[in-house]
């Protein structure tokens, strides 16, 4: 007789394979991908292709070098590449998706043992890596060279946004911007069993509750709708948090995990910035998964149901998880509050030294309540409606001489448009509005280039001038009162400084004089 196959039962298998599960996710992401390319144009397509290519190539090369079985055909690298591309700005240069996917696959996935072994979502980890390494490029969502704020940035400064446009995706943001298209994909996955309802519902639900409780406007349907549609929340809730490898196994675990990241996202959004709240919340949730898995093993069917004295108790696992979630949420909130004050106190001390430099005649500094009220009004949002880029007025102090007469004012401003983060400086004015000098309180630019802003050759140019607005002269050799020579090779830094000083002049003219 011919040889027969012997195996342990069951002898039939479903059609599902790892590949089919992965390509179902790719299919579900197609509406959002197409919309992104349609809305943002050809460069978005290039970003997507580069990201997917880089992910697949990295996995292929790693498997080849490490003599591991080639796992490219399971499609998980394609999902990672695509997800990473969808949460990138459509304007990023192509090395960004290339590096992001390389990091995601190589460091986060392959080095931890490949498929199923990574403890963080590779796409999100890749995105966080990019955010940390290339902050300025990653948070620039401008289109066609025009700097424009994302809807959530506008919302956080009290502006109003068009929720319908946000829902459909006709706004600025990442490539995977269309909530409608993402929802379509999410519904497909729900219907075909690719994802279950527990994570998206508990995530969005706890997020809504927390934002209503902690947020600036309380419970407000429009505000909530905008929060839901912006900042990659849909992409996160439907496709990132539900990543099977990095989410818990059981339904109970899913709910605890969803609530945890929902709370974190809300805390990060309310007290932090919108660009990265979802990413960091989910990554932190990923780290909790082994713990959740360990304690969320459900009771088997029928166990204890027929015992003589059934005692109604809250399932232990649920109680533990709720406690952990609450504690973690509280701890994060507390840390946020404490460090916020400490950092502010430090900043103030540093600022005091700079105030003395820029208001030479002052013996002591104090606050003017009327001016401070105006500062408060503008401290949380960009000053000047984008005229000076991302500029914030931090503080205005009044300088007084030994006999208590006002001799000048110092205005501390921050521009977030530096080459490598924030540039903060104090501008000193005398009572006529002539600049007495500028002094940096925060400058972390490139040494030898942007850092030269702190040299007198550049910053001395402002002293003694009294103009309504400076312009940056990139060519050098300026003669006019309102022209400032750029630091050669550091026009971004120079521009940020000029913008910051201009904002200070504007504020001085409007609210101090």
């Amino acid at each position: 007789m011919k040889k027969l196959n012997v195996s342990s039962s069951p002898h039939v298998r479903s059609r599902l394979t790892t590949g089919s599960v992965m390509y179902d996710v790719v299919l579900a992401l197609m509406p959002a991908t197409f919309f992104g390319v349609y809305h943002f144009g050809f460069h978005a397509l290039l970003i997507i292709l580069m990201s997917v290519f880089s992910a697949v190539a990295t996995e292929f090369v790693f498997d080849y070098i490490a003599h591991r079985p080639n796992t490219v055909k399971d499609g998980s690298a394609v999902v990672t590449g695509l997800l990473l591309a969808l949460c990138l700005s459509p304007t990023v240069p192509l090395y960004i998706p290339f590096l992001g996917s390389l990091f995601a696959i190589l460091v986060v996935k392959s080095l931890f043992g490949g498929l199923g072994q990574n403890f963080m979502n590779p796409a999100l980890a890749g995105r966080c890596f990019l955010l940390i390494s290339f902050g300025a490029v990653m948070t620039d969502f401008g289109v066609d060279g025009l700097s424009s704020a994302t809807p959530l940035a506008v919302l956080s400064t009290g502006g109003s946004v068009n929720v319908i446009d946000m829902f459909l995706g006709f706004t600025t943001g990442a490539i995977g911007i269309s909530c409608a298209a993402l929802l379509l994909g999410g519904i497909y996955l729900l219907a075909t069993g690719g994802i279950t309802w527990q994570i998206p519902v508990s995530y969005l639900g706890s997020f809504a509750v927390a934002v209503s409780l902690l947020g600036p406007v309380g419970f407000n349907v429009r505000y909530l709708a905008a929060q839901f549609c912006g900042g990659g929340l849909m992409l996160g809730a439907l496709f990132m948090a539900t990543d099977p490898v990095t989410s818990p196994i059981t339904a109970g675990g899913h709910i605890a995990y969803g609530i945890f990241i929902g709370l974190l996202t809300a805390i990060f959004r309310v007290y932090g910035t919108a660009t990265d709240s979802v990413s960091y919340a989910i990554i932190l949730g990923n780290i909790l998964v082994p713990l959740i898995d360990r304690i969320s093993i459900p009771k088997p069917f029928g166990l204890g149901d027929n015992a003589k004295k059934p005692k109604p108790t809250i399932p232990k696992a649920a109680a533990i998880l709720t406690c952990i979630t609450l504690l973690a949420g509280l701890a994060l909130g507390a840390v946020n509050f404490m460090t916020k004050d400490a950092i502010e106190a430090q900043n103030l001390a540093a600022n005091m030294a700079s105030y003395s430099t820029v208001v030479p005649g002052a013996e002591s500094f104090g606050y003017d309540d009327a001016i401070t009220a105006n500062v408060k009004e503008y401290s949380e949002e960009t000053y000047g409606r984008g005229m000076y880029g991302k500029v914030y007025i931090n503080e205005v102090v009044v300088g007084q001489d030994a006999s208590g007469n006002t001799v000048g004012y110092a205005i501390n401003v921050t521009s977030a448009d530096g080459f490598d983060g924030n540039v903060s400086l104090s501008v000193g004015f005398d009572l006529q509005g002539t600049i007495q000098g500028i002094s940096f309180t925060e400058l972390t630019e490139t040494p030898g280039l942007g850092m030269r802003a702190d040299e007198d050759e550049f910053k001395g140019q402002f002293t003694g001038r009294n103009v309504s607005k400076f312009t940056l002269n990139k060519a050098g050799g300026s003669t006019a009162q309102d022209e400032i020579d750029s630091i050669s090779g550091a026009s971004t830094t120079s521009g940020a400084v000029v913008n910051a000083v201009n904002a200070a002049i504007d504020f001085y003219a409007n609210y101090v004089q």
Partner: protein
Amino acid sequence: MRHNTFRGGVHPAAMKELSCNKPITYHRAKGEMVFPLSQHIGKPAVPVVKKNDPVLAGQIIARADGFVSANIISSCSGKVAAIEPRLTSSGLMAPCIVIDNDGEYTMKEGIGVETDCAKLTSAQILEKIQAAGVVGLGGAGFPTHVKLMPKNPDDIDYIIANGAECEPYITCDDRLMQEQPGWVVGGLRVVLQLFPHARAVIAIENNKPQAIESMRKAIANEQRMEVMVLKTKFPQGGERNLVHAVTGRKMASTDLPANLGCIVDNVTTLAAIYHAVCLNEPLMEKGFTVTGDAVAEPGNFLVKIGTSFAEILEAAGGIKGDLKKLIIGGPMMGVAATDLNVPICKAYNALICLSEDPVELAEEQMTACIRCGRCTRVCPVGLTPQAMAVAAEKKDFARYEKIHGLDCLACGSCTYICPAKRPLTQLFKQTKQMILSRRKR
């Protein structure tokens, strides 16, 4: 509360259309007949015949050894050729009585004589069932007389006739209910007589409309019986899931159905009870399906216990085309066979011949676990196979037991659904064996 179903489960392709319209044919084996001494759960039976002894059909050839054991009955007439170890379907040698079948099927006296069961006492009924060697014919092979003697007979309020037949391919219960509903009803009458406070529920999956119709007709005049239609889902016929679907009661792994007031018997077992008690016919034959895409003429048979699989396959026209895999029992919980020259035992109900081996394909497609959690969603007893697999692979037996790994029914649902094609059920069966053998030491 009634549910008609349970949480979890899978929907493998039914494949019942291959044989569900083939009427049961009566098969009389010709060659030598082999009767393993252990065809049931419990102690093996003890031979009461010697080599060269003449035997009649219906004669006891091995007696139950103790209470939890069962008689073995010769299904043919002839003489004892040998009492020796023979290959059985498990792939191992086991002690068997071999009878040289004379092909006459001369019956022992008194077989086929009708008895009015209403005139019998409970003790007499149980004695007849025990003598007839009836065991659970759905697959488990638990001695039926033991099941019918619970500690609390007055608390039994449900007799569940298991006609779910949730395993793919198999159709012999379906055909039995269509063609001989009277046997099932007769068996239920006997059992109801033992449990005066109970009512009978005949539970059938909704993919067998003809069987449902046939059973409904047959019980039209029965006060204490009803037919309940269940959702088609594997493992709907599993005892714990069936009790839940019918009564809403939840059986833990440590519970017996009787603890929850239920007696569950397969419809084929009930037919055997009817034959044993009302017709004085011991268990000699049973319904059997031969099917699969590699069988020339798939069909349903009433087959003599002790017939070899090779012979019944011959009766179904033999193999057609390529043969890659033979399965004894259903594809979800059955055993892969290596050799067909082994006897059909009491609890076997199907032979499936496949030209493709889905497991072979699955082994090619296997990847690392992607933690998708589908195994958890389909587990019919609420376990977490993914976590069990992690513990089992690490040989962390304490953890394995803590997360209730020993509750696993080995139903195969998790392995069926797994996209990464992990051999979960196999791992769980091995781990269970390892843990139990350590305990014994």
